[in-house]
């Protein structure tokens, strides 16, 4: 292929000089970038063939973070795969959790409760903001904008505090459950969310002032790594990269799931499909995600969680002691106090966010500890050889992950273990298309292009 991209003279061509990089009579040079390179957030190897500073050919090698996700899923029960899904896209683990759960729910043919659908939307969108913040922050750091990185990681910190408040963990959250979520939102979540979003909006405003229109940033981003809409689709690329090419395809809009058809949002579009448009799309999507979270919390049915024990509380140990002594009459009526670690899992809250299907969802802890039926139900779901048993069949569920279509293809043979779990990683297609994006460009263009692809080793290599 031609070394210099044809078309009108750009700033880049001006800087390079007329006809530079055509390389008459010289030898091409092989240059390996990675697998470990300070400017690459992620372990990946790009083998390039250079002519001067122009990349003639590139080849991408992946697999350095392969952890046998799909094989591991086949060993445990259906719910046992959830911690593994945390580690797929470790920047937005909530979306992976919910995507996997939704695939199994589709296979089971159950629908989660209304409140749970809203919770999933809220938490998934918070995750998406974290993901975009990390992507934009890290790739601008690689272009020299270290301040932006610090600001964005600061903003992400506020959001991770929200996530921690709900799930109890920052990264490996394991919050999704087949048929619902682990626990309800904490009572003060709305106020915390508003406080955090105020900070995030300030950061986004600052970053816009720092980057959008910044000469150095624009020179490295505009017109670099571009793909046409047709090529983007043929390469199977979805998500922000597809929308940056001007294709209005967002699964949340065109194939709505959970409560996405009940919140208002816009689908930001780019025009040129280059790195700069990808950056703009991501920045705009963060604002849309915050809108969705705010609407989701407003429209969430069930209202505030009001667990009123009316003085009938007794500590768990006293409860057990009474049972041991044979004073069982009327025990079921007595509410027990749960450990603070189980906040949000009290029976009224728990039943609001989980489907009432005893074959799928664990009973609330009060029922498990307080009645023989609950105890049996619990054991039937956790004992080896028992548990969730979807009927034999297959289902494919696609959620809009932060990087694009996150698909889970699950096959069941009717037993309590998945027969096959396939994760369709959203960042694999753009990484596969990376050579196409950087060939004909300069060595320095690898860095912003690779940053805009937002490769996440966990989901790429599984």
């Amino acid at each position, binding site marked *: 292929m031609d070394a210099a991209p044809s078309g009108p003279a750009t700033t880049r061509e001006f800087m390079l000089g007329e006809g530079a990089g055509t390389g008459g009579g010289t030898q091409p040079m092989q240059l390996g970038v990675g697998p470990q390179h300070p400017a690459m957030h992620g372990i990946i190897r790009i083998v390039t063939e250079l002519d001067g500073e122009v990349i003639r050919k590139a080849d991408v090698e*992946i*697999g350095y973070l*392969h952890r*046998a996700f*799909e*094989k*591991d899923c*086949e*060993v445990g029960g259906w719910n046992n795969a959830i911690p593994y899904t945390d580690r797929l896209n470790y920047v937005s683990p909530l979306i992976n959790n919910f995507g996997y759960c939704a695939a199994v729910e*589709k*296979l089971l*043919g159950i629908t989660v409760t209304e409140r749970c659908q809203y919770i999933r939307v809220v938490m998934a969108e918070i995750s998406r903001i974290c993901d975009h913040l990390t992507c934009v922050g890290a790739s601008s750091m690689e272009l020299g904008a270290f301040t932006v990185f610090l600001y964005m990681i600061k903003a992400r910190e506020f959001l991770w505090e929200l996530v921690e408040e709900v799930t109890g963990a920052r990264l490996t959250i394991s919050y999704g459950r087949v048929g619902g979520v682990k626990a309800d939102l904490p009572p003060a979540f709305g106020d915390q969310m508003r406080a955090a979003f105020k900070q995030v909006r300030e950061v986004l405003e600052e970053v816009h002032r720092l980057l959008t229109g910044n000469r150095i940033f624009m020179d490295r981003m505009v017109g670099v790594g571009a793909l046409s809409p*047709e090529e983007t*689709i*043929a*390469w*199977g690329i*979805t998500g922000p990269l*597809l929308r940056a090419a001007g*294709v209005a*395809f967002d699964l949340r809009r*065109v*194939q709505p799931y959970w409560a996405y058809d009940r919140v208002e949002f816009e689908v930001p579009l780019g025009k040129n499909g280059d790195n700069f448009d990808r950056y703009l799309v991501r920045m705009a999507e963060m604002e849309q995600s915050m809108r969705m979270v705010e609407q989701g919390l407003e429209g969430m049915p069930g209202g505030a969680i009001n667990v009123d024990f009316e003085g009938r509380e007794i500590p768990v140990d006293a409860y057990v002691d009474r049972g041991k002594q044979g004073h069982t009459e009327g025990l079921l009526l007595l509410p027990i106090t749960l450990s603070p670690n189980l906040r949000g899992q009290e029976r009224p809250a728990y039943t609001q966010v989980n489907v009432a299907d005893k074959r799928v969802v664990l009973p609330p802890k009060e029922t498990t500890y307080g009645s023989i039926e609950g105890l049996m139900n619990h054991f039937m779901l956790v004992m080896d050889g028992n548990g969730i048993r979807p009927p*034999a*069949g*297959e*289902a*494919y569920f*696609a959620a809009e992950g932060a990087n694009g*279509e996150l*698909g889970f*293809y699950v*096959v069941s*043979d*009717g037993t309590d273990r998945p*027969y*096959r779990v*396939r994760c*369709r990683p959203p960042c*694999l*297609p753009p990484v*596969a*298309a990376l050579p*196409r994006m950087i060939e004909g460009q300069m060595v320095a263009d690898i860095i912003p292009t690779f940053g805009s692809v937002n490769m996440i080793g966990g989901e790429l*290599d*599984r």
Partner: protein
Amino acid sequence: MDGEAILGALQARFGGALAETHAHRGDHTALVERGALLDVLRHCRDDGALGFDMLADLTAVDYSKFPGREDGPRFEVVYHLLSVPHNHRLRVKVRVSEDDPVVPTASGLWPIADWFEREVWDMFGLRFAGHPNPKRLLLYEEFVGHPLRKDYPINRRQPLIGPKI
């Protein structure tokens, strides 16, 4: 187009080459004979009303331990097609026996099939005839076996590789 109409259109065009069609949980599936696979996929991509311009996913399943299917063809290669302009999906499957584990490559139709097929070769040991670069994708070349096959034990150790110190 809804799923039934897509399956109907394929049925009318290819008839006997479609071994089976079904819809389960809203996913419409066409099971295709291997000889007609590329024709069906090409028709799905190029036909204006179908317009499947994206290969969303390509994977395989080893059915050798599946109750009731131990004796049938061992593998199924699964294509998930997506049409961006029409916003509909289709699953195309093809059955492959263990003795002749070869499928024609779809990398001429969608460039992304290149990597997906390399992953299937890596994990299942199925070959794709005409593939431009039939190498492993995630694992290394010295790896012995194909780990997502059902007869590959999860705790098998592989020899260490790397530079001799």
